[in-house]
């Protein structure tokens, strides 16, 4: 059972025009894409046809096209709209991309594997810092950060450091996680801040991963 809560899986800026973002949450692979009308879709990363990863497909603006045989799935309801091998035939209604809920907060994209989860509670206006994948369990990473001076644990997946740095765990799979980072409040020199936090988190990653 995965926790009934939302986890960050990408940032708004990770989803530029016509891109398909690739993520993993509790070993569930996700294809995440923004349609031209700004709707964000988070789908099981598998075409219903042959199980090919949709993350290597193409974002066509209103639908996502599988790279291998051109099956297309519509933004929003995920309905399969086109099966090129049967251009005249009706498309079975049951052929939908498997969808996950989408939440947008604090410049991040969130999802949950459990539809009943409460939405993330995060005000806008945060500065999104670089998320860092770390090859370790989330709990190990969060424990290491919780030992920093000035760190406070808000919940098992969320830490607040020095008042304005918020660190959030995305448990990606066994032995791998992504550490998302937001700077809450006034940023000053945003680039300098991004670089400073990135250095700090990369130091942490080297320390945790050791010489694996």
């Amino acid at each position, binding site marked *: 059972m995965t926790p009934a809560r939302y986890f960050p899986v990408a940032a708004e800026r990770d989803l530029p025009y*016509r*891109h398909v*973002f690739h993520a993993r949450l509790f070993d569930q*692979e996700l294809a995440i894409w923004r349609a031209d009308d700004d709707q964000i879709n988070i789908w099981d990363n598998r075409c219903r046809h042959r199980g090919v990863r949709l993350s290597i497909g*193409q974002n066509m*603006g209103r639908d996502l096209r599988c790279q291998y045989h051109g099956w297309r799935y519509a933004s929003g309801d995920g309905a399969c709209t086109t099966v090129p091998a049967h251009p005249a035939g009706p498309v079975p209604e049951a052929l939908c991309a498997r969808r996950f809920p989408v939440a947008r907060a604090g410049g991040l994209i969130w999802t949950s594997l459990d539809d009943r989860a409460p939405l993330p509670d995060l005000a806008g206006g945060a500065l999104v810092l670089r998320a860092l994948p770390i090859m370790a369990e989330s709990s190990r990473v969060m424990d290491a950060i919780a030992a920093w001076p000035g760190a406070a644990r808000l919940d098992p997946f969320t830490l607040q450091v020095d008042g304005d740095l918020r660190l959030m765990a995305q448990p990606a799979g066994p032995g*791998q996680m992504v550490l998302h980072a937001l700077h809450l409040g006034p940023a000053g020199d945003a680039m300098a801040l991004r670089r400073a936090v990135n250095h700090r988190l990369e130091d942490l990653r080297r320390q945790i991963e050791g010489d694996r």
Partner: protein
Amino acid sequence: MVLYDYELSADCYAVRLLAALLRLDLALVPVAFYPAREHEGAAFRRINPKGSLPALVDGDMTLTETGAILAHLAARGDANGHWLPQERLAPVLEWLGFAARLGASAGLARLHDGFMLPADIGQARREAEACFRYLDAHLWFAEAAGQDWLCPGARPTIADIACFPHVMLAEEGGIERIHYPAIRRWLDRVRSLPGFIGMPGIFVPAPVPARAGG
């Protein structure tokens, strides 16, 4: 110009790709790298004594290092100097050096898995991952500064073309790209360049219309 070429070679593809982007004609001479190992044979060593691919012959000059071949194509086919900008030569050379690191790590892992080349596969993948981490951070901060390419400037350079094949083909060497989102976006940008060509394992995307209304 004659390119001694193997269709599945990442470095040969880099040369064909830049030639296509520059609309330069190359005469391709196929060399059976695998399994025949024709590149190591006596006949091919008359052309390239190193017994390596690619090799480019232009008149009385023969070039056998990928970065040098790309530089030569840019000199021949790019009168504006966009692909090899003289005022930013050092950053381009820096990334050509990085491309060689990619070839010796991600490229080697792919040759090990797909072409039975002997290698310390664990070491090759670890070095590839270290390269990809460095590249992803570089590209993330480049994006944050409004830059799309490896070297500062509005246009791609031969450095992007030298690095692209090894990164794009890395999954054939058992290296997944899910942990490198900024790299994945850069791969999209390279693949959407006008005149882009693919190879087995690299699809050409459908044309993407310019973004309406911004």
